[in-house]
């Protein structure tokens, strides 16, 4: 890769996980609501294997770069809606659409199909915020992008279980 968009990103420590309480009701058929932490876990962990989404240009996860935090995930389980607001590391990050696409693909592959997913950059954190948001939420463009082998390879690389 040539010159990096952000050569020296700030790397943060991974967040301590809350211990999830085991529900008293162990009926396997009971529909469990999906909460914020679960979405975060889908995005960043799978069981006990760390499966962080890798930044497209750094060997760090989006969590370590604080591109996505637990608080940036809003879930309305009743209405089956998830909104992820991510913060690109620099204002002119040309990788923003790829990061957004990775988040969308990861959630598409992990959540029940009834979920509606909105992905956006945090207000004021990207020079072309409106354009990035529009593109990330146009399902026809997303569908076309996911038929592009080069782009899919890039996304899969970011979503690969081991990148370190």
């Amino acid at each position, binding site marked *: 890769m040539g010159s990096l968009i952000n050569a020296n990103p700030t790397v943060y420590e991974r967040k301590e996980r809350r211990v999830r309480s085991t529900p008293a009701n162990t009926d396997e058929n009971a529909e469990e609501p999906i909460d914020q932490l679960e979405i975060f876990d889908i995005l960043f962990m799978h069981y006990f294997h760390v499966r962080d989404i890798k930044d497209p240009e750094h060997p760090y996860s989006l969590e370590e770069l604080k591109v996505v935090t637990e608080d940036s995930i809003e879930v309305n389980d009743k209405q089956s809606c998830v909104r992820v607001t991510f913060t690109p590391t620099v204002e002119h990050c040309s990788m923003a659409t790829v990061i957004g696409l990775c988040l969308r693909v990861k959630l598409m592959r992990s959540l029940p*199909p*009834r979920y*509606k997913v909105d992905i956006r950059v945090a207000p004021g954190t990207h020079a072309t915020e409106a354009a990035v948001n*529009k593109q990330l939420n*146009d*399902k*026809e463009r997303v*569908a*076309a992008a996911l038929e592009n082998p080069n782009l899919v390879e890039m996304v899969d690389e970011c979503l690969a279980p081991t990148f370190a």
Partner: protein
Amino acid sequence: MEDGKKLELREIQRLEGHTDRVWGLAWNPATGGGAPAMIASCSGDKSVRIWEQNPSSGSWECTAVLEDTHTRTVRSCAWSPDGRLLATASFDATTAIWERSGRDFDCVATLEGHENEVKSVSWNASGTLIATCSRDKSVWIWEMQPGNEFDCVSVLQGHTQDVKMVQWHPSLNILVSVSYDNSIKVWAEDGDDDDWHCVQTLDKTVSGHSSTVWALSFNSSGDKMVTCSDDLTLKIWDTGYNPSQTNGDAYGSWTNVCSLPGYHDRTVFSVHWSREGVIASGAADDAICLFVQSKNHTIDGPLFTLLLKKEKAHDMDINSLQWSKKEPRLLASASDDGTIKIWELVGVF
């Protein structure tokens, strides 16, 4: 619609077979000869399926699968006015023309020229012209020649982003395109010299949409048009003037009649106006809404009111809706859930 009756959208049948989201569908307009009702549907599974209604049992079944021609998503499909030819537009940058004889379909032509994804295809009223549009921001007009030859007669530039849908006026050679650039463009021919140009742009300056315009539909007489958008509204337009004859004179231009906001919670992908005057809209909120023009006119013009809203019409986004021409109370819908549903608008006491 009848007074004193409550209207209901009743599910007749769910058609399963596609292995990915269904993007589009089209009723075959051929009438007479006791021809069975027929629908073509197209999908992210790269195939087109033909569905026929069994005349005796009334049940729908898949009678043909057109595959191995398009190499990517088939985004939209449209029958020629006589129902003999089917055009299919694909993300593979081509539009295929299929000829039907009985239940057999042969690909008789491939329209190539767009740089990338073709998103929509439409036949004009006489079946002599085809319009296509693409992510390459252009709209192409093709003329049908004898022997299934298609010549490109015009490449229309003007949109600044992907063009989502093209649709011809139901009787005039006027073409409308809608785009990711939030605008609607009206195209007409200049005299007899085959020179097409944009006669009007309907955008925010004339109470147009504030986000991607996904679809449009004319009423049967062509004096009104409805559009739907990512801005969650439907808009009705007065298209009573022929804009190709006024040459930009503001007096003859198409104008916004009203906006229908607040009925869908997510992007409205599809809208279709029935022969009987019922507008159906389908959206990413999985719901179908039906609207009619109310009998009470105000001095500001006609009013459109919600007839009914069918929540959870599908398990996922609704991408396309179309009323049958032959039986105007039958509606078909296509969804991300991979199914097509046939609905009947019925009055219940």
